């Protein structure tokens, strides 16, 4: 693996491990496709958590052993999975009734851009091929708490936490918390509140790499993760 790729993997693990701390025992949680799915690998043994997959599985278990693979059993990322001991199946309409009806405690999703008012863009880039929003637009309005995990800046080094999103939105004013490789930021009625700074970064570095104004929390945690 090249150093860049390795760094990327380390960074993703750091974000996923910090995001895991958002999950409390007893929670029903939907994890988005990609980096959010990785969060499941770091759930602490003491926590009893039910993971929901919007294709109709409440209670995702670990990946199957080769001998256990069932082609009829996948997660929303279309990966083969198992069901947990509490697992139950339902139709797509019922699955989204659970989501839309605010029965999930938490959703952890990926993001391309988040704005100071909690707007989220994570489904399309104009001019690029549009693949579709999948369940993201429903989920952002459903779970009681929406946490976005993403890199703090784009691969070109430009901020992804903006005054206003430039990309077409997934949802308006839907984000509660942003977790990046550099910081944990809450979306409040007064704007963005910097709660934690990651190891290896200073408050100033976080502020400089964030386009939207950041208020620094009185109880700011430095080297928080």
């Amino acid at each position, binding site marked *: 693996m090249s150093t860049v790729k390795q760094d990327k993997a380390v960074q993703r693990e750091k974000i996923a491990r910090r995001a895991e701390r958002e999950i409390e025992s007893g929670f029903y949680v939907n994890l988005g496709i990609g980096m959010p799915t990785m969060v499941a690998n770091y759930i602490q043994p003491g926590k009893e958590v039910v993971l929901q*997959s*919007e*294709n*109709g*599985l409440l209670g995702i278990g*670990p*990946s*199957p*052993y*080769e*001998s256990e*693979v*069932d*082609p*009829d*059993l*996948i997660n*929303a*990322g*279309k*990966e*083969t*999975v198992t*069901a947990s001991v509490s697992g139950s*199946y*339902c*139709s*797509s*309409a019922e*699955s*989204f*009734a659970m*989501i*839309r009806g605010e029965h999930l405690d938490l959703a952890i999703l990926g993001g391309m851009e988040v704005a100071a008012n909690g*707007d989220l863009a994570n489904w399309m880039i104009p001019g690029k*091929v*549009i*693949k*579709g*929003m*999948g*369940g*993201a*637009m*429903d*989920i952002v*309005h*459903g779970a009681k708490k929406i946490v976005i995990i993403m890199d703090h800046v784009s691969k070109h080094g430009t901020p992804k936490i903006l005054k206003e999103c430039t990309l*077409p*939105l*997934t*949802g*308006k*004013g839907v984000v509660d918390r942003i977790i990046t490789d550099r910081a944990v930021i809450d979306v409040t009625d007064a704007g963005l509140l910097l709660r934690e700074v990651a190891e290896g970064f200073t408050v100033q570095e976080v502020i400089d790499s964030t386009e939207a104004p950041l208020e620094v929390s009185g109880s700011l945690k430095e080297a928080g993760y």
Partner: protein
Amino acid sequence: MKKIYTTFQEAVKEIRDHSTVMVGGFGLVGIPENLILGIVESGAKHLTVISNNCGVDDWGLGLLLENKQIDKMIGSYVGENKEFERQVLAGELEVELTPQGSLAEKIRAGGAGIPAFYTPAGVGTPIAEGKEIREFDGREYVLEEALTADVSLVRAARADRFGNLVYNKTARNFNPEIAAAGKVTIAEVEELVDPGELDGDHIHTPGIYVQGLIEGQQEKRIERLTVRQEA
């Protein structure tokens, strides 16, 4: 009581040029593989297809794309298919992207006699453009209209000749809603059992929604095989 077909081509005979067809499945899981092959053989063109995804390049609904049988696709995620991309860019294929939960509910509403409903999904996004927005308790919702189909194609694990269907695990997905939303619904089933063998307490789609049945053997292709190592 229900029509039991013996060939897949005969089972899809109600699908003609310009038909609207709903197809169950999520990715390649729970798709009526052989009924789709039946449409390929039938050659019916200018179809409007309603399905969460559009197969992959060489399997599932991707075969209808390859054969240029689809004019319009309504779904939520179509990112697994290069031919899809090509046809959209060439202006050969119209796409209506719909949030997945709204798609499921539009189909459910269609089968349940509800013409439209309000949902928060899509408010403030390009999806809501041109649609009615209404506020309830200080929150905005968009009006989404129901979907129905000339023919619905679903896949079940087990069925009896009364059309009662039982699905397996996440192969259920959109199938129950799609079964109810078709004027004619044909179920491809892995196993047809004698009446009484299915437990009435565990039927997912009651037979009233199903008009025809056919038994078939599926390949059940896996899109993303993910396994853990034996300890």
